[in-house]
């Protein structure tokens, strides 16, 4: 189990949080996760296959994500894919990370780094 994922109080690595975010609202297979992250960030964040499956393995070991069976993709329907879903523990870790970011954003807002007065 990776130490960086095993401690929910520690900040999650960026790729880990992006993958958890991709799984919050739906079960997805590997490529669908990569595509969701790239689409959501307008291509600013692109996760490659090596990073994706390395991170997924650690998330599986840590119990933040679980396998949701194999089935053909609804769009391509060419080959069976292994789907992943977020667990309750994974949801809690993602929520903790989102709150941490929210707190940082509040500080940035108060210090006028972001907000209506910055242009």
């Amino acid at each position, binding site marked *: 189990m990776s130490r960086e994922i095993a401690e929910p109080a520690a900040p999650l690595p960026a790729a880990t949080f992006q993958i958890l975010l991709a799984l919050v609202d739906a079960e997805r297979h590997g490529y669908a996760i990569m595509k969701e992250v790239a689409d959501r960030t307008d291509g600013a964040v692109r996760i490659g*296959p090596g*990073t994706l499956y390395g991170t997924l393995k650690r998330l599986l070991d840590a119990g933040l994500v679980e396998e949701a069976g194999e089935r053909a993709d609804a769009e391509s329907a060419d080959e069976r894919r292994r789907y992943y879903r977020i667990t309750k523990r994974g949801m809690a870790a993602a929520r903790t990370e989102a709150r941490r970011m929210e707190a940082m954003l509040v500080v940035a807002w108060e210090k006028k780094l972001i907000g209506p007065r910055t242009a």
Partner: protein
Amino acid sequence: MSAHERAFRWLLARTAHGIPRGTREMELAFRDLYRAAAGRTTRLWLETLVDVARSALALRIDAARARAGELTHATEGTMKIMAMVTMLAGAVVTASAAFEGWAGGVVRHDAASALAGALGIVAGLLLVGAGIAILRAARSAAFGARAAAVGCLLAFVGVTAAGRMSVFTLLLGFGMPLLLLIVLSRGGRTPAVAA
């Protein structure tokens, strides 16, 4: 399968071997990326090479950590068995030395046999202690087990010098601590027996 997919499979085979699962899914993901790239293969390959180079080390460390975990479990099993065998041998040596010491020292009034019996009892109890030390799996357990084994050997040198003892007891008294010292030296500095 396209030449690009074959090249990616070749790359994975050289960077991600030892990873029990996931390579097939990585190939599928690359195939989807290749299709989505729609001819922009230079950028795809640059991103892929950077990604594989960055993640390969982490994947290998994870795989090595998993193998080390399996090895530790095997060592734990060996040490548990060794601890139980040592305690059993210690109990047998104690009982045997007590009987032989009583027979020689009390019945035949032979002081040397009585001394040999007493030393044999001490040696047997040291073996039992060594087994308990291994099972405790504390930080100082390896040192304690080794010290007990050496103490048992010294006691049996005294037993041999002091008087007569059966071949069976002598074999156990010399053989068991020697075997224990060999196993401890091969199994690492701390006998990792998980509680």
